[in-house]
């Protein structure tokens, strides 16, 4: 049973049923010219039904998911058929339709069938994206840290042991924490505060190597403590920011990270400089595509990730990543 409150699921139902109506209109029409007219006539029936049923499903979604799948599916079919029959009866009452037993059953059957097709589609889709597959996919996608970073960090820690043993200790502790996070089971959402702490540890380690070349600006405003996000959502992006934005440049650069809550959405913004001659960031695209796919697995259409390169007023270029997440629920 799909999550009827998910925007992606709703959109799929809307589009799917309208596609069915579109086909049906073509079958009814004599030629292509009156096809659209038939569809518009049909839409007067289809849209109210769709909206009513979508709201009903959104309200009762949690209840339906608790039942055995076949009971849930049967209930959805009954609801679709009954609401169609009810609509025909209402139209008769308003004087738009002749009504009658024949009309009533026809509407119920058509609506039930459309519902059955959609349920079948979601069942197929669920099988294609079964949790086991999705989990395996997530495990594979969760970015592994660059070996480049690991070996450089170890090298930096080694250099500190003699001169500043205490800083070396802290750095090794942070490295251990980072690897604990990387080797964790990656399926469950984690508190955003944990991800931020992880990112801070990561950036501390990078600062050890890069010193004054790396500056970081955090903007964390009004973020609820219980907010959860997919694990390792930001760390790979920061790693990219350092690898492509800071390391290739002699000049000091700033990585900016901003969090803001807008209504029921969490907005995350990351920015890093694009050094001249930094070249195309091939690996960067891979990491971005990776996170985008993970977001889709967790949130379907309700999350998005955008990237762009902007030119600042002083002529320098900046690479920006923006992630928008729904606060709270995820599919898995």
């Amino acid at each position: 049973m799909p999550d009827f409150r998910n925007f992606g699921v709703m959109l799929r139902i809307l589009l799917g049923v309208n596609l069915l109506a579109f086909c049906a209109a073509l079958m009814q029409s004599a030629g292509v010219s009156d096809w659209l007219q038939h569809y518009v006539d049909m839409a007067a029936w289809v849209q109210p039904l769709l909206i009513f049923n979508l709201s009903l499903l959104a309200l009762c979604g949690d209840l339906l998911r608790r039942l055995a799948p076949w009971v849930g599916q049967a209930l959805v079919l009954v609801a679709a058929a009954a609401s169609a029959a009810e609509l025909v009866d209402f139209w008769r009452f308003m004087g738009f339709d002749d009504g009658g037993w024949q009309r009533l059953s026809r509407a119920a059957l058509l609506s039930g069938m459309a519902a059955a097709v959609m349920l079948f589609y979601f069942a197929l889709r669920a099988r294609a994206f079964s949790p086991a597959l999705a989990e395996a996919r997530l495990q594979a996608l969760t970015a592994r840290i660059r070996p480049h970073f690991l070996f450089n960090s170890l090298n930096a820690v080694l250099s500190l042991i003699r001169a500043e043993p205490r800083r070396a200790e802290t750095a090794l502790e942070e490295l251990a924490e980072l690897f604990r996070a990387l080797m964790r089971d990656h399926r469950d959402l984690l508190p955003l505060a944990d991800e931020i702490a992880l990112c801070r540890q990561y950036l501390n380690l990078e600062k050890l190597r890069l010193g004054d070349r790396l500056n970081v600006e955090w903007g964390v405003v009004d973020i609820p403590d219980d907010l959860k996000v997919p694990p390792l959502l930001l760390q790979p992006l920061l790693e990219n920011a350092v690898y492509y934005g800071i390391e290739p440049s002699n000049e000091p650069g700033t990585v900016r990270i901003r969090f803001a809550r807008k209504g029921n959405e969490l907005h995350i913004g990351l920015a890093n400089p694009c050094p001249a001659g930094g070249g195309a960031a091939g690996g960067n695209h891979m990491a971005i595509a990776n996170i985008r796919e993970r977001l889709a697995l967790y949130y379907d259409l309700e999350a998005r990730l955008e990237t762009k390169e902007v030119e600042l007023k002083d002529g320098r270029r900046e690479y920006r990543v923006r992630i928008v997440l729904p606060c709270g629920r995820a599919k898995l």
Partner: protein
Amino acid sequence: MSAAQTLAVMIVDDETPARLRLHDLLADLAPEMPNAVVAEAADGMLALAAIEGLAVDVALIDIRMPGMDGIELARHLTRLEHPPAVIFVTAYDGYAVEAFELNAVDYLVKPVRAQRLLAALQKARHSRPAAPQVLAGLQQGARSHLSCQERGRLLLIPLAEILYLKAELKYVTARTASREYLLDESLTHLEEEFAERFIRLHRSALVAKDAIIGFERSAGDDAETQWHAVLRGVPEKLPVSRRQWPLVKSYAKQRG
């Protein structure tokens, strides 16, 4: 050089801790392998400035550095009168390591171990520096500078300043707005490496695409018209061969 003589070492790495670590290791190895760090630099350009007037036996060079990378630095170093032996140091770079193995170029992986460093220094003491062609093969992408030797000094020519390259007898000259340089390179290789930046006008001239400001027809009264490219910043005009003219013209057209 006798075995007891002190080895003059240069360290080039953009990360301070990485340089510190090599410093420590070299100090540890001093009883077995007398050495002294004579120069340290945070990138390729600084390294070339630092090495001037110094006798350096071995250069320990990080590969991934801002500005000029380690491999390009090593290529420029080969033009010195007494080029140092180069040992590359890299954190992790599958491609580079494979290429080093293939070409028997010495390298160390970070974190560097004292024993490996000692072995590399001993080897460097007795081997000849890697050939320029080998280093050229290791480089991914194009260099940021060309270099040449003049009266014992190494000169760096930023690629962006070069207006054209011309083959003359044994040498290739590079022309910038201010002067000419004699290069020890082949025009064909330069054309391959910098295909994005230069366009061929005739058999022995490559011109920077952004240096062309127009074309002039020669005022000869013979039947064959000869075109010349007019360049920004220099008075001389370069002839365009009849074979290259259609290509050059189409390029000029698409640029508007």
